[in-house]
C-alpha cells in the first residue's frame, strides 16, 4: 500500500449546488470534492437533503444551480455508458417484480459495462464480487425471496461488479452509497464499509450517506454535515463531532466521547425521559 500524492484534479467536484422543487430548496449552495482514495460520509437529520445531494452528484438529477464535474468534465455532458464506468451508485432497498436469481441481479452490473472483458473475466468478477459482499451462498436463490439485508448485499455485489468492469475504461472511480448499512446486521455493516475502505486503497473515491455517526467516525476521512439543504460542516470526524454541533444539527444532547487509543470520537445515546 503506497501513499498516493494528492491528485491535481478531484475525481468529483460539485460547485455551489442547489436543487429546488415545489418552491422548496432541498439542496442549497453545497460545494464539495472527492479525491482518489478518500471516503467521505454525508450525515445529517432526516430531510436535510442528503439523498437529493447524492442524486445530484450521480447525475440522476440536474441541479437548478451549480455544477457537478467528473475529472473536470460536466456530468451532463458525459454519455451514460461512460458515466457508468466512472461512478457506481448503491441505492436504498430495491424491489424486483421478476424472479431474477441473486447472481443474475449482481451480473446486471457487468452487462455492457467496460471494454474487452471476455466471458471468463466476467465470471471471475462476478464470483469475486459475490464473495466480497458475502452473497456467494445466495447466488442461486430468487432475489425477491431474500431478506432486506440479503438483498442489500446482493445489490452491493452488483455495484462491485460495475466498478470492476468499469475499471477497464476508467482507472479512477467514484462510488456513491445511499445508506448502505441501513438493513444490515453489525457484522455486515462492518464488512461492507471494510470493502468500501478497500476500494479507496485502489484509488476509488467513496461518498456514503450514513446515519450512524459512530460508523461514520470509524470509517470516514471526512464528515460532510448537511442541515436543511446547507453544508454546515466538512472535515475530519474529530474536528466535526463536537457537542455543540451535534446538539444544534441533530437536536440531541448526547455527549461526544473519545476512545482512549487514537482519539476517535463516538456518540453515546442518552435517554431524555426519566423512568
Amino acid at each position, binding site marked *: 500500500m503506497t501513499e498516493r500524492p494528492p491528485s491535481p484534479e478531484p475525481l468529483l467536484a460539485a460547485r455551489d449546488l442547489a436543487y429546488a422543487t415545489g418552491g422548496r430548496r432541498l439542496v442549497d449552495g453545497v460545494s464539495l470534492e472527492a479525491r482518489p482514495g478518500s471516503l467521505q460520509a454525508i450525515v445529517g437529520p432526516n430531510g436535510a437533503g442528503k439523498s437529493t445531494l447524492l442524486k445530484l452528484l450521480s447525475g440522476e438529477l440536474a441541479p437548478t444551480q451549480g455544477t457537478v464535474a467528473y475529472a473536470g468534465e460536466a456530468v451532463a455532458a458525459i454519455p451514460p455508458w461512460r458515466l457508468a464506468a466512472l461512478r457506481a451508485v448503491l441505492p436504498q432497498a430495491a424491489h424486483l417484480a421478476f*424472479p431474477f436469481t441473486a447472481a443474475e441481479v449482481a451480473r446486471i452490473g457487468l452487462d455492457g459495462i467496460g471494454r474487452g472483458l471476455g466471458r471468463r473475466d466476467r465470471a471471475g468478477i462476478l464470483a469475486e464480487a459475490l464473495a466480497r459482499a458475502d452473497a456467494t451462498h445466495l447466488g*442461486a436463490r430468487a432475489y425477491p425471496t431474500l431478506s432486506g439485508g440479503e438483498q442489500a448485499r446482493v445489490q452491493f455485489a452488483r455495484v462491485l461488479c460495475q466498478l470492476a468492469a468499469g475499471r477497464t475504461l476508467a482507472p479512477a472511480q467514484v462510488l456513491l452509497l445511499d445508506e448502505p448499512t441501513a438493513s444490515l446486521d453489525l457484522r455486515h455493516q462492518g464488512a461492507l464499509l471494510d470493502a468500501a475502505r478497500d476500494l479507496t486503497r485502489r484509488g476509488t473515491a467513496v461518498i456514503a450517506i450514513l446515519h450512524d455517526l459512530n460508523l461514520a467516525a470509524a470509517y470516514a476521512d471526512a464528515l460532510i454535515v448537511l442541515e436543511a439543504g446547507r453544508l454546515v460542516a466538512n472535515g475530519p470526524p474529530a474536528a466535526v463531532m463536537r457537542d455543540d454541533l451535534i446538539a444544534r444539527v441533530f437536536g440531541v444532547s448526547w455527549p461526544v466521547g473519545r476512545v482512549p487509543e487514537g482519539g476517535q470520537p463516538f456518540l453515546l445515546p442518552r435517554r431524555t425521559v426519566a423512568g
Partner: protein
Amino acid sequence: MSDAAGPGRPGAPVFLGLGLLLAVAVLLSLGLGAVRIPPARIVAILTPGAAEAGRDALVVLGIRLPRTLLGLMVGAGLAVSGALMQGLFRNPLSDPALVGVSAGSGLAAAAVIVLGDRLLAGMGLPGPLPYAALPVAAFLGGLGATLGLYRIATRAGRTSVATLLLAGIALGALSGALTGLLVYASDDRQLRDLTFWSLGSLGGATWTKVWATAPALLPVLVLVPFLGRGLNALVLGEAEAFHLGVPVERLKRLAILLVAVAVGAGVAASGVIGFVGLVVPHALRLVIGPDHRRLLPASALLGGAFLVLADVAARLVVAPAELPIGIVTAFVGAPVFLWLLLGKPRQDD
C-alpha cells in the same frame, strides 16, 4: 432447496424445443383443413424450384402459407409486445390489451366499420369503403393511443410508468365505452363484422396482407433483442438503469414505439387477439428465467407457434366454419395460465 431457480437455467435446449414446436405448428397449419396434405408433400411443394402444381400446391401456397406466415408474425409481435411492456412497466401483468393500445386500435377499426359507409355517403362518395381502410385505421388507432398515453405520462422529459399504466387503463375503458356506443348504433351486418374483428381472426389472410404486415413487424422482431440488456437494468428501477449506463428515456421511447407498431400492425392484420402477450412471456419466464436477452427472442418463437396452433384449432373445431381465434387463445391461454400459476408452488410440496 425450495427455490429451484438455479444458475444453470436451460438455454439452448429450450430454444431447440421452441424451434421444433414452431416447425410442427407450421406443418400442422399447412397440412390440416378441408384438404389434408401430408408433411412430405408439403416439404416437396415448398422446396424451391420444385415444379409442384395442382390442387395441393394451390391450397398450400395460395391459402395456407400466407395465413401461417401472418399468424407467425402477429403471434410473435403480440408476445414480444407483452414481454416489452412487462419489462417497461416492471409489472408481470402488463399487456398491450391492458394499457389501452389494443383498445385504441379496436376503436378505430370499429369506427370505420360502423361509420365508414355513412361518412362516404355524406361526402357523396360511392361505398363500400375500400378494404384497406380497416387495417390502416387499426394501425393509426394503436399508434394514436400509444402516443397519447406517452404524452399524458411524460412531464419535463421524464416518463412516469405509474401514470402510464393508470392512464392506459382509463384510456382503454374510454375506448371500450366508445366502441360500445358504436355497437349500439350498428346494424346487423356491422355487428357481425365488429364481433369478428374484436375477437380476431386470421381468416382473411392473403399474400397482400402478408406483404403489408411484414415491413412493420419484421423490423420490430429484429430490433427487440437489442433492448434486452436495457430492460434487465430497468427491472432494478429507472434510476438504477441510468446508473448502469442505460439511456433510459431513449429506451422507453423505443420500446413504446415498437409496441405500438407491433400491436397496430397485428390488430390491422387479424383483429384484436388477447392473451398471447400475457401468457407467452409468463410461461417462458418459469422455464428460462426473466433475463430479457433470452426472454424476448423466446417470446417471438413461442408467440408465433402458439398463435399458429390456435389458428389450426380455430379452423378445425367447428369445420367447415371457423371460430374467432381470440376465443381459442383465451380458452387455451387462460387455463394454461392458471395451471402455471398453481403448478409452481405444488412442485415444492
